[in-house]
């Protein structure tokens, strides 16, 4: 029976959401193609986590080894190369996450297995893989197909599929396998986790946020944004480019590599709406976006959109709000 492999992702004892998102999509593919859904979990003392997966997959391959205490792409590559060669699954899926990005391309190269990365949809039909992915920061969608192969590999974008627990639970079995790792991985060693410096501003606690992005163009424009935020009684947040340029500290970053926020108001200024950013702010109560490009993805998430030069809108808006405040006092 054909198999579909899903690599479970976990960190510090916690299975990450992406695992359940992929398992949900993989179950759909497994049902359509008549394949058996298998989850793979590699780690140390992770039996409990493996048990959680039995609700989602028919079979769970569990490998425990002290050398797997923390994620190590080289250890994973060695183990998965062996497992995939033995079982020849039709499809191997993992997240397009910091772990998947580190592991999948190298594993695919080691096996010469066609790999599609950062997929937002995926179909396996008549032994052929087609995927949907994005280019140009989400401005264009791509339909792509893989060269015909026995096994395909794909990484899946985070928060693309909504996890659903199978009803009734699958009640799969755990197959514990001995670790094939013989020695420590000496060429690549995990040293430690590094947490962001404590202190600073907690943007997740703010009721109102003004999010600034690449469109503000110059550091010299930051004070104008700060003044608007101040008038609004809002806190200044930003997308990745602003932190990269050093215009705001990293604790102000909204998105998958920063914070997830849910304010009552998110005013997005010059933010195009790359999915990494959107992931962190799409649940805000009210989203108003100002961007010059009418097709900017941010407008698919905003309640109100303004296609205009933000440097025209920001001063007018600040004046209007200040006027209103003066009237009230």
């Amino acid at each position: 029976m054909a198999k579909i492999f899903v690599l479970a992702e976990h960190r510090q004892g916690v299975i990450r959401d992406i695992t359940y998102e992929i398992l949900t999509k993989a179950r759909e593919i497994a049902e359509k193609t008549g394949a058996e859904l298998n989850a793979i979990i590699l780690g140390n003392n992770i039996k409990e986590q493996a048990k959680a997966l039995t609700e989602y997959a028919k079979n769970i391959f569990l490998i425990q080894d002290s050398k797997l205490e923390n994620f190590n792409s080289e250890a994973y590559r060695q183990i998965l190369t062996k497992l995939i060669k033995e079982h020849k699954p039709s499809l191997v899926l993992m997240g397009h996450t910091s772990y998947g990005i580190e592991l999948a391309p190298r594993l695919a190269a080691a096996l010469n297995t066609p790999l599609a990365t950062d997929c937002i949809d995926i179909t396996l039909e008549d032994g052929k893989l087609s995927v949907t992915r994005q280019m140009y920061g989400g401005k264009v969608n791509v339909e792509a197909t893989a060269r015909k192969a026995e096994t395909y590999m794909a990484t899946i974008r985070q928060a693309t599929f909504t996890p659903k627990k199978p009803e009734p639970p699958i009640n799969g079995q755990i197959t514990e396998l001995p670790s094939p790792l013989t020695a420590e991985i000496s060429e690549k060693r995990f040293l430690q986790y590094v947490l962001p410096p404590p202190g600073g501003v907690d943007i997740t606690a703010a009721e109102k946020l003004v999010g600034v992005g690449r469109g503000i163009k110059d550091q010299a424009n930051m004070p104008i944004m700060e003044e608007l935020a101040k008038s609004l009684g809002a806190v200044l947040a930003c997308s990745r480019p602003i932190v990269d340029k050093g215009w705001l500290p990293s604790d102000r970053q909204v998105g998958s590599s920063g914070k997830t926020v849910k304010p009552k108001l998110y005013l997005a200024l010059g933010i195009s709406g790359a999915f990494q950013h959107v992931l962190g702010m799409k649940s805000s109560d009210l989203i108003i976006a100002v961007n010059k490009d009418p097709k900017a993805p941010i407008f698919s998430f905003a309640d109100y959109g303004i296609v205009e030069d933000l440097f025209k809108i920001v001063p007018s808006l600040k004046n209007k709000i200040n006027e209103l405040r003066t009237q009230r006092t």
Partner: protein
Amino acid sequence: MNLDIIVCVKHVPETAEAELKIDSTGKNIEKTGLVYDINEWDDYALEEAVRIKEKQGGTVTAIIIGPQDSESTLRKCLARGADTAIRLTDSKFENSDAYATAKILHSIIKTLHYDLILTGMQAADDGNAAVGPILAEMLSIPHATMAKKLELGIGTAKVNRELEGGMEEQLEIRLPALISVQTGINEPRYVSIMGIRKAMQKEIKVLSLTDTGLTENDVGTAGSWINIEKLYVPPVEKQAEFLKGTAEEIAGKITEILKSRGLI
């Protein structure tokens, strides 16, 4: 300790603020009118390489796969501090996916001496985030992706990798290694007039398919894992209500919305 560093760069259109259209083939975007520059992630990779060279000596070689026009990106690399540059140009290379791209790079890099290979973690156009680790596998050297910090030791490097939610992990990796960098690892410098002038005199080595030892079937669509069937502008599932008028009027409308929701 002198280090020989290779930086793989890409020449991509700037699309952050452009409205994109699909061309008549349906497999590409309309490129006319777009401005090309070094891929943002590669810009950080190049800067990192030059900083290492300035600190501890060595060489920086920039490699690009692209049309003749991509020479402007290589000139920028030279102006920023790269010592040598190689341009791989052949119409057969077009439409190569991450795998075929890695094969082309591998064919040349395997003939060079290097202690470190730096690349951007992804390209702004196709966003595969895959060439680096595939190339590392082909070269049988360790790799790390999404580097936010790099500290070089003797024969090893400490790499801080970006994880989700603001966290990082620190790894120790043996050299020679391939490291793909995330934006924000440094602040890329501006190019000085002197640098540009000097860079114009430097020679760029130009190679084609025959120089790689690969065949037509190894590159382009024939040599790729994944091929593009069609491009389209994503369907809009939900669309914002657009506020129109003069800046003054729009500001008034926003204020009304905020007022009605008790936000001001």
